């Protein structure tokens, strides 16, 4: 017997295996970041004073724009495959990857400013939670880029043999990438604006 529903959806659940898997994984990710946001709230309400306007809002706004754009190109990459246009897929997936690189560069500039100014995790709980949460988010971005880079490069060979399965893979990778984007949408106001 072979494992069923690796490509086609099971009629009663409406999902293929990997898509259900990634949704469950994202549920656990919600709990992970949920616990960290809870930590943030607890530390902040317990602090006698909380630092304001310490972070670079324009750079973070730019980063938000970069990440949202990358979510759009990710959808376009998947849509291109649905329309059987592999060239366009390559372009959009490449753009998604580059946007990830751009995000990390901008984040790196921000980090280096703080570290050079002596503002490091041990300075106070604000920088501690800022570096921990954005750092963990950064790790998630890197993870997504590794997956996207693989599907842009060596992994895209599957398009020739199993196009449907490959399209599914891009959809699953896209769900994860949108989640990483979504986490940033929460991080940005929480640390930079509030």
């Amino acid at each position, binding site marked *: *017997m*072979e*494992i*069923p*529903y690796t490509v086609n959806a*099971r009629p009663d*659940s409406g*999902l293929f*295996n*990997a898509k*259900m*898997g990634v949704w*469950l*994984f994202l*549920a*656990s*990710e919600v*709990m*992970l*970041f*949920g*616990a*960290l946001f809870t*930590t943030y709230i*607890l*530390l902040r309400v*317990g*602090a006698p004073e909380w630092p304001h306007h310490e972070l670079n809002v324009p750079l973070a706004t730019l980063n938000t724009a970069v990440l949202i754009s990358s979510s759009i190109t990710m959808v376009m990459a998947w849509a291109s495959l649905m329309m059987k246009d592999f060239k366009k897929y390559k372009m959009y997936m490449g753009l998604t990857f580059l946007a990830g690189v751009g995000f990390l560069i901008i984040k790196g500039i921000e980090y280096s400013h703080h570290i050079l100014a002596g503002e*490091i*995790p*041990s*300075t*106070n*709980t604000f920088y*501690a*939670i800022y*570096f*921990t949460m954005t750092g*963990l988010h950064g790790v998630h971005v890197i993870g997504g880029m590794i997956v996207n880079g693989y599907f842009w490069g060596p992994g895209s060979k599957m398009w020739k043999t199993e196009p449907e399965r490959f399209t599914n893979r891009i959809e699953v990778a896209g769900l994860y990438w949108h989640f990483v984007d979504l986490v940033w949408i929460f991080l940005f106001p929480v640390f930079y604006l509030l």
Partner: protein
Amino acid sequence: MGTNNLTHTAHAVHHAELHAHHEEPGFWRKYVFSTDHKVIGVQYGLTSLLFLLFGFTLMMVMRWQLAYPGEAFPVVKFAAPFAILGLIVMLISGFRLSLGTLIGVLITGLGVLVYVLGKGEERMPDGIMLPEFYNQLGAMHGTIMVFLGVVPLAVGAFGNYVMPLQIGAPDMAFPKLNMASYWVYFCGGVIMLSSFFIPGGSAQSGWTSYAPLSDVTVPGFWGGQTWWLLGMIFLITSSLLGSVNFIVTIMQLRAKGLSFMRFPFFVWAQFVTSFLLLLAFPPLEAAGVLQLMDRVAGTSFFLPSGLVVSGQVWPNSGGGNPLLWQHLFWFLAHPEVYVLILPAMGIVGEIIANNTRKPLWGYKSLVWAVIFLGFMSFIVWAHHMFLTGMGTAISSFFQTTTMIISIPSVIILSCLFISLYGGSLRFNTPMLFALAFLPMFGIGGLTGLPLGLSASDIHLHDTYYVIGHFHYVVAPGTIFALFAGIYYWFPKITGRMMNEKLGKVHFWGSFICMNFIFFPMLIQGLAGVSRRLYDGGQQYAHAQGVLYLNEVMSVAAWVMAIFQLIFVINLFLSLRRGEKAGSNPWEATTLDWTATTSPPLAHGNFATAPEVYHGPYEYSVPGHDKDFIPQNEPMKA
């Protein structure tokens, strides 16, 4: 593939290729890096049994210190000759796969273990245990038993091996992920074990790792606590991969006709357990990352302002909150209690239905109780924290939810008890363990009620009563159910029955010893003896009347070890000499027994996809010539 244009030669080539594809994989792919859920299940099983044995050994060493505080541990002296004796035994039996070799290996292993642990100025100079080492043993006993022993055995081994067979699936939904989760678990275990050998030793702040103690004990990367955190991150990752795999497998790969209310109870237990693992573990992962930052990057997540350690102001920024750790920890660790108990209940349900030759009483109530239990387990965590000064309003909330969660537990236990009524019971070894589970878990559960009430908890908190309570749940509760499962599914896994006589000796010995170990703890706890005391309470006036129990418990623990050796011998003896079992030796109804051979086919489990026609426990149905109707066999109209 078979198009009409293919020539005969092409056909031959194609056949040869096909044949090559189906060739047996080599040793490494077959037994070590296998993606077959059955091999992975056995890997989980053997690894976790070794960890259980190791965790138990740590406890036996601790029990020496508790029974005879400050006296030299005599075993250390004999460890080296003991190990050499084992080598000689191995030599005599010629290193063949035989009982003699096995006993030799066990003796050598135990000798080397005690020698390594016992030697050294940091642990037991001249055989006398240092307090720091006692704390290490305590912290690692808890961690190893829960995260490396019981959960991997209950979920990783039984879930992996049995669940796909019971739902008629060819394998897990993601076989490579399954292999990855085993190896990530293995790495976590190696990190935990190697932490014993770094300077300063392993973690020593209890399995709960409460801050600020855990933050400041042997600080920095080369402290045992840091390794504990790294190990935990591996174990959590492994659980996450596993739980995603389990849920997808159950939802997507169940056989035709196997609707949710036709699931064997064990499958339901694994299903709910997986959700608990999936959603409760990430907050501990977050907490682990935060504590890692505290220890390595100098942050103060769990360190309050103005913390003084050994008369020195601790050089951190402060502003953190030690209670935060407790909240994040118990948000996992309370659902974890149900992760420990639910698969056990599932196993007991299977065995009771099979050996009473009756359907489980109240199957639907059982299922809804398990679901409700899983849901409630997320909102009871702070009953572990009544004494932290959270405030009475919050305590009242968690006290109420705790009382509510006892209802589904009682429903499950009642259903299993009532299932016995009117059945023609078969008292084989798995059934004995399953039957013992019921009163033992009953004692464990009922002794928990006074701990869940915030008033009586003031007296009982952090005493030996707590230890007695949760060990009754986990040791004669869960571990008995796991033993029952091993005796029950051993014929499916190996094709041979386990020895009944040795099994019964193992059962009665363990059953009596368990109660001599854990019941005195309840008595000591009520008398006010605190847990985690290095000397077992010698210096407390109020403890003097119950101190004699320390020796009773220790001797019972050591005697119990002998009965576990009988189990190990039985395991290996039956592997070679056990009576041959057919595909369905227990005359069971579920797909794991009725639609597969013993052991099941290496790839794909089933020769043809099974189809399910009715519920899981159709035993003794009137008007049928045999007293069980397999799930894949239609019932007579």
